[in-house]
């Protein structure tokens, strides 16, 4: 992951089509186009796992069915706790078969349609519920040394709790961190960097102009500025966090993609 930061490799989030898509063929094509562009640019495609609890196709399915090429340094799959054990193992085995090594392990968002791992499924004892920590332990145990595991950090949740969780995540096998979207310098993220100078940290940049959506995603009210300029914010984040990588969410492939080849400037 350090090499991504040093080589200014953007992590570009791509969402697979939703299961209830009424134009599946078109959505599949769109995904292939985005993925291919990211590969050609040398960036890393980060494929989500039923984001926001919306039943979607899996990243591994997309890669397999659509026969997409995998360059191990350029693919990251999100993996959450809303799977049956069979499905979880299927995904992990497919990743290994395809050479996918970066996983972002999160608790995730559930919904009506999504099954949830039970502690007994993955040999977790003494816990009521499976979180990213138990999932990390499982992967580390059953699929030892096969993956590079990342975790999320939420600077908008109470600090003590987030830092305590981070300790447990790192102890369970995580080796890189991705933060929630930042629109400015964040004191809690600063603390994180201070506390873990050797852990690669990737900050998320919100590339959509719709700040109210960000508000909903992080769960706290963000005052609506008159104008939010995602590209300007991105440049600012590079300056303020020169030692961090950047994860781009909601990037517009139409209007913004061509601009980001010039944005990663650290001074």
């Amino acid at each position, binding site marked *: 992951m350090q090499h991504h930061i040093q080589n200014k490799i953007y992590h570009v989030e791509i969402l697979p089509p939703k299961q209830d898509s009424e134009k599946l063929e078109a959505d599949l094509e769109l995904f292939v186009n985005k993925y291919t562009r990211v590969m050609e640019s040398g960036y890393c495609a980060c494929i989500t796992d039923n984001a926001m609890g919306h039943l979607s196709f899996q990243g591994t399915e997309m890669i397999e069915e659509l026969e997409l090429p995998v360059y191990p340094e350029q693919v990251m799959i999100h993996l959450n706790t809303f799977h049956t054990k069979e499905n979880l193992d299927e995904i992990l085995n497919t990743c290994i078969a395809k050479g996918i090594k970066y996983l972002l392990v999160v608790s995730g968002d559930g919904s009506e349609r999504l099954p*949830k791992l039970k502690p007994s499924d993955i040999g977790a004892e003494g*816990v*009521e*519920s499976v*979180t990213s920590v138990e999932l990390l332990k499982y992967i580390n145990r059953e699929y030892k040394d096969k993956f590079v595991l990342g975790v999320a950090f939420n600077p908008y949740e109470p600090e003590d709790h987030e830092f305590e*969780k981070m300790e447990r995540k790192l102890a369970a096998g995580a080796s890189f961190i991705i933060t929630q979207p930042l629109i400015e310098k964040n004191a809690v993220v600063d603390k994180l960097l201070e506390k873990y100078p050797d852990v690669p940290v990737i900050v998320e940049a919100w590339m959509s102009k719709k700040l109210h959506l960000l508000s*909903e995603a992080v*769960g706290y009210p963000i005052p609506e500025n008159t104008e939010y300029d995602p590209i300007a914010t991105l440049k600012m984040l590079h300056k303020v966090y020169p030692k961090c990588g950047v994860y781009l969410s909601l990037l517009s492939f139409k209007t913004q993609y061509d601009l980001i080849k010039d944005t990663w400037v650290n001074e």
Partner: protein
Amino acid sequence: MITLTDLERKEYRNIWVIAEVLSGEIQPVTHELIGAARTLADARNSQVWAVVLGSGVGDKAESLYAYGADTVIVVDDFRLSGFQDEMEARILVRLIKKYKPEVVVCAATSRGRALIPRVAVMANCGLTADCTGLSIDPENGDLLQTSPAFGGNILATIRCSNHRPQMATVRPRVMKAPEPDLNRKGQVIKESVLDTDLDKMKKIIEIFRSKETAVNLSDARIIIAGGRGMKGPEGFELLKQFASRVGGAVGASRAAVDAGWIPYAHQVGQTGQTVQSTLYIACGISGQIQHLVGMQSCDMIVAIDKNPDTPMMQIADIAIIGDVFEIIPEIMNEIPKL
């Protein structure tokens, strides 16, 4: 469908309540229904009849006079001891044909909701499910049935003008059971199971009645929910005790579930369950949008929190400012163990 002529419709009189019977005992919801039926019968100048089907119910039926039943039809037969929906449906259709009730109501319980739709189709009449309100239209005497739809986001008023009887299943604990008047008298009609009722008899292999009701969030009347303010799984143990005391279910915010303090099955909110309970007590939940979306339709929201200004404290009907760990035990002191 064949509709009734005006003359035919007028032949139907009286308000029937199908008693909810478990193991030979008439359940309290029956009294609620008789109370509601009484109001309807008074508006129609007619009688309330209770229909009791079961095994070993013979001597219990007359207890219903005290609540307002004028007549009780009893079918007491050992073959009705388990829940025999097909047999009961046959019997009810036969009784309806014979006695022509104008309205038939039944509790919207698992049994009622299995039985009455079958009866309605067999008897060619309309049925409204899970009603929270029943009244008589003063203009024409029709039954007006109010029933929630879209998970409680819409209230529909339904009428069945051309078919009789008008049938409704009624949500338990919505109507008020009247105070019993032990001086009230009535009459009993004994009817029986016929051989022709037996061709669709189920074989009941096992019956299990649990001491604690299996409460799930979507059907729960009371939900006690906890958030980050509960500080850990021990906090949820307290909530479980509280819930048990009031006959409620335990809910949770996403923060508590993500922290691993309580399983995901208890999560209320956008990426969890949407609930419409009668009472929602939020303990130490700040009330982020994603959570509020899941419980906004609850009839009464109570919030307990140290912080008086959280979104949850603002939308709550009753906001209690204080420490949940001190207040909840005191609330439990006020509510005696059953």
